[in-house]
């Protein structure tokens, strides 16, 4: 192709004009629609864990950082930061932060392989799918299904399904964000303080005879704990012992007397 000056000049002119026009428009737009960002927020986002777990109540770490800098919340809403990170954040913001007491999820079920199966389940490996099929494969309709929705919900690799068919918390990794608690369709997970109170680790409201038949550890609602509790802190709710945590003095009497080993102190 030979050089055609009659075409080249208009081509350069058109492309140049178009490019200049677009560049000018973008320069104007970047000024007109400039969104000021606080350098402090950016520095804080760098320090935050970046898991966007949502335990603080904001959609992500970036949102949380904005609210911390704005003074809406204190940094200790973050359950995922460790003490070292809190120190760095405190240094950055010029305030003193004591890390929140670490919390861990508790599994309110001792079923797993101790609880009989009603049928062989062959289907999607999620609890949410399994629960749609005639209750669950477990004979106990309240207990843990063990297909690991909590494992997939965890962003810190802090939960796994152990050999006994139940989730196990790896405390070293756990940040207590509660993502697993939200993910559990059976609601057998709850968040507890590490040196927390005494728990009834069973969720079954089935009659005692049935529980005894299908599960080795389930609460049968016998009421021995209720009779023996010196504080009167235990009630029975449809064949399930419920501990009033405000009255409980953690004396451990109920743990000793429970014939089913269904009460534990964490």
């Amino acid at each position: 192709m030979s050089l055609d000056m009659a075409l080249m000049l208009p081509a350069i002119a058109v492309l140049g004009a178009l490019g200049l026009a677009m560049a000018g428009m973008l320069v104007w737009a970047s000024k007109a629609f400039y969104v000021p960002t606080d350098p402090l927020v950016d520095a804080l986002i760098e320090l935050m864990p970046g898991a966007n777990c949502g335990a603080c109540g904001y959609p992500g770490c970036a949102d949380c950082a904005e609210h911390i800098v704005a003074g809406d919340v204190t940094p200790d809403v973050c359950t995922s930061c460790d003490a070292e990170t809190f120190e760095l954040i405190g240094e950055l913001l010029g305030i003193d932060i004591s890390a929140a007491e670490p919390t861990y999820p508790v599994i309110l079920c001792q079923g797993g392989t101790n609880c009989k199966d009603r049928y062989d389940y062959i289907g999607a490996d999620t609890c949410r799918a399994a629960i749609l099929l005639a209750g669950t494969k477990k004979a106990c309709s309240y207990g843990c299904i063990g297909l690991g929705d909590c494992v997939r919900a965890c962003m810190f690799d802090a939960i796994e399904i152990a050999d006994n068919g139940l989730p196990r918390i790896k405390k070293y990794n756990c940040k207590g964000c509660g993502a697993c608690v939200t993910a559990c369709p059976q609601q057998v997970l709850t968040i507890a303080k590490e040196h927390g109170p005494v728990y009834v680790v069973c969720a079954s409201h089935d009659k005692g005879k049935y529980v005894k038949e299908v599960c080795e550890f389930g609460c049968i609602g016998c009421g021995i704990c209720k009779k023996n509790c010196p504080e009167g802190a235990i009630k029975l709710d449809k064949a399930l012992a419920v501990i009033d945590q405000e009255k409980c003095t953690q004396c451990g009497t109920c743990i000793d007397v429970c014939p089913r080993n269904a009460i534990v102190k964490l």
Partner: protein
Amino acid sequence: MTDVLMPALMPTENIFPLFVEAMFTKNFLLIMFLGLCSYVGLTTNSDTSKGMSMAVTFVMTMSAILTWPIYYYLLSPASFLGKDLTFLKTICFILVIAAFVQLVEFIIRKFSPPLYRSLGIYLPLISTNCAVLGVVLLNVQEGYTYGASIMYAFGAGLGYSWVMLATAAVREKLIMRGVNLFNGFIGAFFAAMMVALIVVSYFSVVKL
């Protein structure tokens, strides 16, 4: 050059068949194989494919609106310059689309942070997506009128969207179920092949 005459602004014939053609019988993903990188990359999750579909539909329609006047009033021999600069169409279209996408990003970042978080991250990805460029180049190649080209681009965007969402629905569930065949690139193309087979055979029987 075939595009010497400027097409009319408003279409004189029914443009609905054109819309259906862009959406189904000449679907950009399944029949024309344009925009496959985003198709393979983003269909593992229905949330991301939803955001991408919205962004692509929007950008396709807006680029058709922008590039048609530039082509016929600046580049074509029928323009006021009177020179045949149509060989500049690709670079000009890329320039205009990229600048426009950048502008939209500025605007939604300023006025709608929630929309920016859900849509904004996809916008830079598609500023020069081949499907977007394909639509505007086809518009001028086929000599569509202004109204018809906008309709064609909108249909192409919707066609892209439904294939993205359909494939994401299939892939997401198969991945959850643990069917390893559908993980990765091989799985994406296998899924695409099956959806394409359905579309091709359906529209070879049902004539529109």
